């Protein structure tokens, strides 16, 4: 792996994380190269970088998962390093190895660490060796083995992609009849998402908390921890609200979990930024997995520890030793706003960005790629924006989150901001009674505000009346301005 000062960085990703990495690189005086699929040519990350290279068609498998196209783009652009972001190729050991072989600096752990961390079975064994408890489980895609495991631990059981992460490819199986079809679907999804169809089965904990530890390791064998994040609020086993610190664990458990995370990361020879995930069930905690990359929710740690984790990644990749973090301060909460319909089982949504208002104010940070006029499609993950609120305590962070969500507006794409507002404003969230079941329980009784729905119906009728003369949107993008063709309407005051 190349080392030393990084001068030109290719970001092998898209969306908010591509912009976020570009911003740190720019502040550090590092040139940036964006890559983009055909579907993303008009996306802001392409415009924001110093250079931008097309890498293939819309399908991720042929673009953002296309190792050789990405490495070729890096070489053609004269980049000396590649930041993989999260998702896509970020935890792919073969990619990391190919990047290094091409003489480029991979901003992440070395290939062998990625392989070790990505091997769920091996990681579990390692955890057991260093004395960290794990949830009972086994690797298999075989129905008979799965039946035996389930018979031993009892239903429900969990099916996970062995190469997975980010909640994708996870299924809960409640009864034996579902086991066969679930294994089949999970294997197919795992193959599609990670190019690796291997599965892993685990005992299902009823209502655990999900707690994870941010770590950074350097090439000199030093690993530091930057506190924990509580990520219990999930839908489809994917986090949607995260915070730091966790309001639901004792100081003793926090200490034990952080100690376990550092022990594991050290044992695996971890380098660069990563996360060790745990489930907390009552007074017990269990190692879940190592996420060998920057996490979506890294900003809550940045705010508490007064650091820039992407800058840390670049620094340790360039050979600098990791520094002891300062004492944490305050409380940070992140809400992920997705292009989904919370009123319909979080179904994916898509559409044009017709109107946009991004919240701002003291303690508010919004990481997003949203911009007026872009189209949100369905090719990739539906994360639209991360609203991160910082406060001197949890209550201030929570109140700032709710007020900022009220400021968030995006018309044209169904999104989850109003639902998140409901969660954050709830008594149960205020009391920090969190578990991985919270969202599925909460969404059952959540309704869109009735007043807003009625007002919306009236505004829709006015818009429909006004639209008689409205210009329809042309098929090509050659209109003089995207705003002229929206058919948006105004309700003019007479003053």
């Amino acid at each position, binding site marked *: 792996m190349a080392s030393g000062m990084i001068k030109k960085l290719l970001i092998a990703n898209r969306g908010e994380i591509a912009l976020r990495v570009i911003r740190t690189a720019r502040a550090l005086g590092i040139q940036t190269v964006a890559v983009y699929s055909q579907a993303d040519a008009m996306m802001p990350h392409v415009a924001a970088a110093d250079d931008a290279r097309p890498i293939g068609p819309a399908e991720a498998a042929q673009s953002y998962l296309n190792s050789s196209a990405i490495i070729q783009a890096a070489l053609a652009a004269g980049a000396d390093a590649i930041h993989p972001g999260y998702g896509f190729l970020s935890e792919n050991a073969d990619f990391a190895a190919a990047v290094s072989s091409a003489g480029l600096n991979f901003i992440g752990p070395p290939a062998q660490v990625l392989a070790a961390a990505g091997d769920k079975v091996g990681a579990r064994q390692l955890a057991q060796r260093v004395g960290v408890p794990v949830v009972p489980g086994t690797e298999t895609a075989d129905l008979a083995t799965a039946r035996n495991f389930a018979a031993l631990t009892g239903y429900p059981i969990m099916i996970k992609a062995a190469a997975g992460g980010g909640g994708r490819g996870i299924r809960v199986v409640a009864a034996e009849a579902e086991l066969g079809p679930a294994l089949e679907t999970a294997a*197919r*999804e795992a193959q599609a*998402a990670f190019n690796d169809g291997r599965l892993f089965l685990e005992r299902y904990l009823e209502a655990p908390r999900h707690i994870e530890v941010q770590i950074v390791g350097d090439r000199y064998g030093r690993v530091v921890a930057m506190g924990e994040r509580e990520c219990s609020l999930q839908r489809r086993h994917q986090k949607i609200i995260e915070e730091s610190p966790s309001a639901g664990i004792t100081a003793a458990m926090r200490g034990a979990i952080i100690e376990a995370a550092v022990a594991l990361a050290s044992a695996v020879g971890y380098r660069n930024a990563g996360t060790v995930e745990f489930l907390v069930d009552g007074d017990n905690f269990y190692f879940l997995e190592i996420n060998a990359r920057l996490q979506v929710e890294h900003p809550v740690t940045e705010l508490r520890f007064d650091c820039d984790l992407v800058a840390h990644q670049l620094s340790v990749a360039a050979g600098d030793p990791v520094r002891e973090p300062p004492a944490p301060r305050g409380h940070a909460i992140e809400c992920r706003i997705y292009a989904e*319909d919370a*009123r*319909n089982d979080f*179904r*994916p949504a*898509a*559409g044009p960005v*017709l*109107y946009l*208002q991004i919240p701002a104010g003291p303690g508010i940070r919004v990481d997003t790629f949203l911009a007026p006029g872009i189209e949100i*499609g*369905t*090719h*990739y*993950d539906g994360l639209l924006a991360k609203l991160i609120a910082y406060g001197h305590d949890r209550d201030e962070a929570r109140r700032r989150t709710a007020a900022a*969500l*009220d*400021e*968030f*507006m*995006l*018309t*044209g794409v*169904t*999104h989850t*901001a*109003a639902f998140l507002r409901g969660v954050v404003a709830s008594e149960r969230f205020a009391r920090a009674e969190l578990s991985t079941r919270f969202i599925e329980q909460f969404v059952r009784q959540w309704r*869109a*505000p*009735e*007043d*807003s*729905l*009625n*007002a*919306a*119906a*009236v*505004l*829709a*009728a*006015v*818009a*429909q*009346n006004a*639209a008689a003369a*409205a210009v329809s*949107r042309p098929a090509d993008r050659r209109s003089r301005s995207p705003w002229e063709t*929206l*058919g*948006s*309407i*105004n*309700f*003019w*005051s*007479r003053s």
Partner: protein
Amino acid sequence: MKLRELSSGRQFDVEVEHPGPPIKATLDGAALSLATRAQPDGATIIECGGRRLRAFAARRGDAIFVSVGPSTFTFAAIAASRGAGRHSLATPILTAPMPGKVLKIMVAEGDEVEAGRALITMEAMKMETTLSAEGPARIKRIPVSAGQMVDAGAVLMELSPIDSAKPQSDR
């Protein structure tokens, strides 16, 4: 006019008497006045449930997108000809609940299926969703094919309900 809110499926009967400000309208028969204040960026401040909220409404194609603060709603006008007396389920139409790709079609035109039978699997953002028959039916038409990208609301299948009492083969 009649509007359907796509997420809830709820229908609204709205007649606008004065486009404002304030907007005077009847909503499902009840008179309603909505205070509005236009903004230079095309949005409107409305008074709603004792609060002032920013709202924006825009139409694209047949969809009317409305935001009221952080809430989003999408409406479709129900054509007058199919309006009030819209017939129940003579020709039930299976539409795409989300934009995405048709992954797999498990039935063929002419098939008779029973309630709960999986018909079609869609994929969006790496998540698979399988749509099933709500009642016994015959597959009249399948205007899409596997691999095809479709918009939300696109017709995936037309079905004819069949008498559930009548015995039927699975395929």
